[in-house]
């Protein structure tokens, strides 16, 4: 589904590379976790894949279902079925969750020659999807993330994903700042959405989320590269030993891949 090949990227207009040759292959039906210390490039990878204009791809390519998407705008990537759950969801006063989702859902439907939903049909659909994150109807009427608690913002990202039903979702630290109840609801929601036809990439600093969601693969990112990939046991290993050991190993060995 997604193939990232030797991806290099920097902040637009700056020389310093943040991604220094990322390689990653994701197939449908898989859940991946990308872990790593702060500043390792995890969030940048998510933003670059979703088409954030702040970053410039200097080398390499991103293929989505075989198509090179490096030149596509963020909305075009969304139309193909890609989704980014933001680490810091943006507050947009004055636009309700319902308005955004309807516009978003119907735009994506239109671009894919699927039928758009009229307001009544869409409302029914929204209400059904609200169950994924255990939220009340009134949630739809609220301005996007405006005045939401940290947990509500993260739930809203999962809700948007539940509604838009992407093929591939990058979830950028969706677990950070969540209390235990919210963490359960969020991970439960992600588990409900995950299926054989889609793929999910969890970007996280801690193994906590992985107690609730079982990844097929765990990757460790350091200094702009994926330095180690393994099964779910890698997360537990990291939890025990921290990143220091890997960091040492990595710097001793030089190039790890």
């Amino acid at each position: 589904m997604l193939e990232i090949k030797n991806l290099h990227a920097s902040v637009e207009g700056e020389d310093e590379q943040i991604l220094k040759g990322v390689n990653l292959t994701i197939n449908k039906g898989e859940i991946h976790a990308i872990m790593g210390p702060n500043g390792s490039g995890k969030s940048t990878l998510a933003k670059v894949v979703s088409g954030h204009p702040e970053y410039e791809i200097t080398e390499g390519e991103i293929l989505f279902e075989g198509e090179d998407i490096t030149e596509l705008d963020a909305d075009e990537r969304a139309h193909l079925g890609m989704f980014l759950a933001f680490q810091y969801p943006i507050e947009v006063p004055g636009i309700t969750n319902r308005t955004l989702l309807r516009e978003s859902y119907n735009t994506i439907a239109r671009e894919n020659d699927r039928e758009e939903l009229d307001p009544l049909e869409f409302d029914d659909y929204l209400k059904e999807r609200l169950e994924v994150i255990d939220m009340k109807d009134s949630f739809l009427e609220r301005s996007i993330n405006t005045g939401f608690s940290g947990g509500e913002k993260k739930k809203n990202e999962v809700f948007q994903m539940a509604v838009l039903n992407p093929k591939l979702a990058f979830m950028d630290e969706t677990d950070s700042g969540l209390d235990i109840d919210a963490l359960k609801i969020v991970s439960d929601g992600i588990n409900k959405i995950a299926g054989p036809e889609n793929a999910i990439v969890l970007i996280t600093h801690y193994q906590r989320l992985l107690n609730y969601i079982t990844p097929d693969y765990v990757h460790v990112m350091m200094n702009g590269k994926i330095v180690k990939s393994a099964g779910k046991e890698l997360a537990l290993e990291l939890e025990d030993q921290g990143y220091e050991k890997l960091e040492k190993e990595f710097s001793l060995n030089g190039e790890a891949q």
Partner: protein
Amino acid sequence: MSIAVQEKETILNFLDGDFSILSDVDVIAALNQKGAGNISEFSFPTKKDEDWRFTDLRSISRNHFVPVAEAGATPVGDINDHYLPEAQESRLVFVNGEFDAERSSLDAIPENVTVGTLVEYGDSEVVKEHLGKYTTFDEDHDVFNALNDANFKNGVFIHVPKETKVEAPIHILNVFTDAEKPFYATPRVLYVGEAYSKSTVVEEHIGLAENEYLNIPVAEFKMKEGSNVHHARIQRDSKKANHVSRPIAHLDKFAEYHSYTICLGAKLFRNDPRVVQNDQEVNFTIDGLVLIDGEQIADTHSAIDHRHWHAQSHQLHKVVVNDKAHSIFNGKIFVREDSQKIDSFQENRNLLLSVDGTVHTKPQLEIFSDDVLCSHGATIGHLNEDEVFYLHSRGLTKKKARELLVYAFTLESIENMEVESVHKLLLDEVVKFTSRDEEFVAVGS
């Protein structure tokens, strides 16, 4: 040595008119006479005048305006589209400043309420007592108010008696037609709300063509004890018109006056809303929403005068500027000595969509009393690119994302519109404004 004496420029340099002609109605004639004196006396403003520093008046001073009768104005056609469904039988229509009885309908006005023209009720005691008594513009040697005084021969008169509520919104519809020559018009409103009366007034100005004219409305609202009015003012003049308006409200004890001015049209819009607190415990709003593009200029110079104890005032002035448009805001708030317990809110928020747009903003607080809460703020900003990206990443085009964000910015001001059809009309206008064919100039992206 000779000293060149520069001849004073008056508004008479830019228009024709015989201001010795007075109204047949005594109370109007007296104002005509006073106005005629003032227009030849008061100087036409220049950029040297503090209150006109940023305002480019060339669309008036490089033009020449004639009375409507000499302008070769096109007769008005079908304007049914501009009638509000809620005010089908509570509407007064003025065409180029002249009353149009045929297009007006007042069947929904309760019998004890007076809604009509100043000519019709010119001899009534209420008109005699109140007309021209509240404008404070002569003190500032204001030529525009003077021109209205000198020229108006008719206008709107609304009198709501004690403890009476007018259910239907009163729609004052001023339409302006195409004409061979630029003309001037001077609409006038006198509203007198008796104790504990209540009504909604929608004052609308619509240019039916794209012609040049000079529209100078003056409105006086006398709000007696506990009276309440919702005053929506919608300016959709021709994009080549000049609109200089002077609305003033005079509030007695417990009175409430809530006005919402929406500026969409006109090449030059200058609005000087004033509220005078005449007694304790009043509550009022003078909100504004300005949407301008092209080379439009919209200038609001408001003055709020707290003269007594206990008042709550609210002024949210929101502005969206695109292309080379220019917005000016100057919000004066006076709190006089010994007028304590004042709670005054003022905020001017400007959204600049283009690199060539200009915004000038200045809160001006003059507080001579100590137990007072006055908050004020002014912001000028572009669209937040993080917000744009967030919506963009959800599949919306950048253009659509920007449209939604501008729409959301304006919503707060429009939500206050009590009349449903006005609310809807303004939402449509906002969509029209934000979804023009051209791409927004992408500032910051």
